[in-house]
């Protein structure tokens, strides 16, 4: 490396002019001309000299004289004044600068051509300029059908004005955009979440802004729902919710009556206690049910299979597993509460579901017994009916008394205790409808049963999925074993949820885990 190689000599007087675009074609042979090519790469060499016309005093025509460097040539200029020794022209060679300039032009031309081709072809254009995959919600056959229904463009134009047009339309849309190209003061001052022109496109399908609070400030859809993020829209984050819910001023502005929700940042920290607890709400259902008795009572019989009555017998998940199916008499109650009213005739049971049906059934008892006799092939059908009616008369006195007891009795002792089918000494009782239901006398004098109302969901503003909580025992959240009153709302307090749903618990605790921003599902026009 340290060897000092001799530097080849070169003519320091003959400047190479590296800034010029062309070099002499003879340069590589070591005899480049002094003149060099012109700016357009043309050889400027003509002859060894350029003769000059010399007119001596007294002469009229004069004579051409050779001006060759190094001395005049032997032949001298031709009669027309041109040199007699023409030099062969070279083919000037472009320098690297020229090649670099050409490469630059090629790249610019190729870029422009490629962009024009891609932007000029709508299917390619949409695919090329899309900054990411559209969510399934806004693509695919279902969206195309909806867009067709709403007379919308089914591609980029469904949301973007510029998506309907080619390069010219894009430039036009860009020029008319708000804020404009150079509206730097607006870039600095634009409020977050401001409704923009693109929201009008959203509202072509999503009717208006359907917020969860009438006083909530209008927010751009894209503030929470970022598109072009893949098959699934980007999840709404706590930052989106805290934009309002973490801002005291915004929350105060949206304050209506007693519905003022305090500032919330995190569920475990400052999320308010559930309102059914703070406002001491009660289940208004008229049905009388004692959870504690059914789960722990000594008189509760085992189920037909021998198993003990538990939560799962009455509360089974729906198909999705998210919520529990409504409890109903036929599936969950009749196995114990069989509605048998005649201890001697367990085959006969009262209908359930309508007070009128019960009254009609009781008033048609002779016919019911007759049907039973026919069904059981009794030889003396009439005698069978009379025998049964006599037994009832002996027990209840009259048909009216029987009907009164069936509807209004709540006694669990006395003759009624004999009614039932389940095993041994823990027979189910049928004292009367009033044991479980609110029974009134109607204006017409007939009994009337208040229809039970059992809400399927208590916290309607929140999402919940029982299937995701299957590993937790029911009693950890629902304190049913201590509930003796139907009025008890057996939902957990916020702290119970926050045991897991908090940074400490390690389970996701975002707002969107439980809440949906919008009041209802979006509605297509």
């Amino acid at each position, binding site marked *: *490396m340290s*060897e*000092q*190689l*001799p*530097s*080849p000599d*070169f003519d320091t007087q003959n400047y*190479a*002019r590296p800034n010029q675009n062309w070099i002499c074609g003879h340069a*590589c042979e*070591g005899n480049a001309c002094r003149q060099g090519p012109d700016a357009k790469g043309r050889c400027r060499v003509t002859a060894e000299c350029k003769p000059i016309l010399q007119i001596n005093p007294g002469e009229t025509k004069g004579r051409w004289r050779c001006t060759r460097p190094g001395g005049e040539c032997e032949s001298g200029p031709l009669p027309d004044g041109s040199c007699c020794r023409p030099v062969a022209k070279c083919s000037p060679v472009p320098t*690297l600068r020229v*090649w*670099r300039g050409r*490469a*630059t032009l*090629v*790249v*610019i031309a*190729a*870029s*422009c051509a490629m*962009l024009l081709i891609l932007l000029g072809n709508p299917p390619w254009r949409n*695919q*090329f*300029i*899309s*900054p*990411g*995959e559209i969510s399934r919600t806004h693509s695919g056959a279902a969206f195309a059908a909806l867009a067709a229904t709403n007379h919308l463009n089914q591609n*980029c134009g469904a949301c*973007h*004005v*510029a*998506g309907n047009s080619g390069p010219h339309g*894009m*430039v036009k*849309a*860009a020029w*008319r*955009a*708000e*804020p*404009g*190209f150079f509206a*730097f003061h607006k*870039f*600095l001052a*634009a409020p*977050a*979440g401001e409704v*923009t*022109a*693109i*929201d009008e496109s959203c509202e072509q399908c999503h009717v208006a802004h359907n917020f969860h609070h009438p006083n909530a400030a209008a927010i*751009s859809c*894209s*503030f929470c729902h970022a598109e*072009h993020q893949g098959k699934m829209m980007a999840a709404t984050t706590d930052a989106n919710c805290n934009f309002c819910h973490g801002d005291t001023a915004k929350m105060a502005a949206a304050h209506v009556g007693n519905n003022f929700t305090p500032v919330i940042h995190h569920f475990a920290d400052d999320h308010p206690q559930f309102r059914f607890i703070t406002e001491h709400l009660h289940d208004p259902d008229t049905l009388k049910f004692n959870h504690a008795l059914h789960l722990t009572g000594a008189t509760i019989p085992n189920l037909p299979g021998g198993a003990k009555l538990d939560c799962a017998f009455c509360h089974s998940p729906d198909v999705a597993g998210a919520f529990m199916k409504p409890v109903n008499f036929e599936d969950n109650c009749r196995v114990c509460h069989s509605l048998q009213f005649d201890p001697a005739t367990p085959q006969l049971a009262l209908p359930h579901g309508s007070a009128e049906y019960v009254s009609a059934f009781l008033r048609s008892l002779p016919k019911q017994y007759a049907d039973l006799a026919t069904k059981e092939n009794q030889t003396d059908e009439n005698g069978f009916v009379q025998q049964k009616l006599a037994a009832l008369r002996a027990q209840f006195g009259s048909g009216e008394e029987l009907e009164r007891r069936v509807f209004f009795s709540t006694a669990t002792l006395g003759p009624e205790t004999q009614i039932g089918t389940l095993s041994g000494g823990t027979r189910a009782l049928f004292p009367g409808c009033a044991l479980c239901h609110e029974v009134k006398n109607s204006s017409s004098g007939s009994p009337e049963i208040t229809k039970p109302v059992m809400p399927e969901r208590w916290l309607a503003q929140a999402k919940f999925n029982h299937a995701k909580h299957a590993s937790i025992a029911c009693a950890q959240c629902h304190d049913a074993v201590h509930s003796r009153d139907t009025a008890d709302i057996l939902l957990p307090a916020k702290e119970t949820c926050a045991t897991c749903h908090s940074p400490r618990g390690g389970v996701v605790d975002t707002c969107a885990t439980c809440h949906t921003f919008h009041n209802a599902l979006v509605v297509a026009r």
Partner: protein
Amino acid sequence: MKRFRRQFFLGMFALITATVGALWLHVKFSQALPDYAFLTGWILFAAMLGLTFFNARKKLPFLSLGRAETWLQIHIYLGFFTVALFLIHLNFRGPHGWFEVTLAWLFALVSASGVVGLVFSRTLPRRLAARGGEAIFEKIPVLRHALKTEAENLALGADAKSPVIAEFYTKRLAAFFAGPKNLWLHFVESRRPLNALAAELDDLRRFANDAEREKIAKLATLVRQKDGLDYHRSLQLALKLWLFVHIPLTYGLLVFTALHVVLVFGFSGGAR
């Protein structure tokens, strides 16, 4: 050297200060300003235009716009800062979609070629100086031709009178002197071809008489000079070729960036 160090520390200080400041502003305002990407985009675009203007500055030597060396320093440090601006503009996430990915790749290639050029311009001149000799790139063909002529005269000339040397020249040296050789091997600093030729010339010396040995020694000198010339050509070519990537792609990048500006405004929320 002292001046270079001062420039280096000044440039690094400015670069680090600007980068840290930009990151601080990013953390502070990226969430607060909804149109933050527009701002960072324009700043990035301005920086890119500033970098491109360095090339124009070189073409306007008659304008009193400061020393070219100062411009080069600004170009280098602004180039690194532009990379930081680019990452901030992307919010430190990858690009999405064909267009954005192409744009990002162009930016990456331009930046990477710039870094390669910086490394070349910092290392290759030192290697050239260490190897010795001096040759203007445009003059190299002339010098090579002169060496070739001299070697031909020595080996094949009328007064050569040495069939051994003539044969050796025809078989081994004619092609060597005909044009540039071993460019890549010179770039990776390999002396293998020169050593091989030198060894062969040494072998030739053993069978030569005194007059021939003198010619062989002269030929060996010419071979070394030609090898040195090839070395210069290889490294000087590298110093020029990286610009064939850097400059054309810069203009391609500007074309794509201009379209990017149109697209982001044309498809922005406020487009009408």
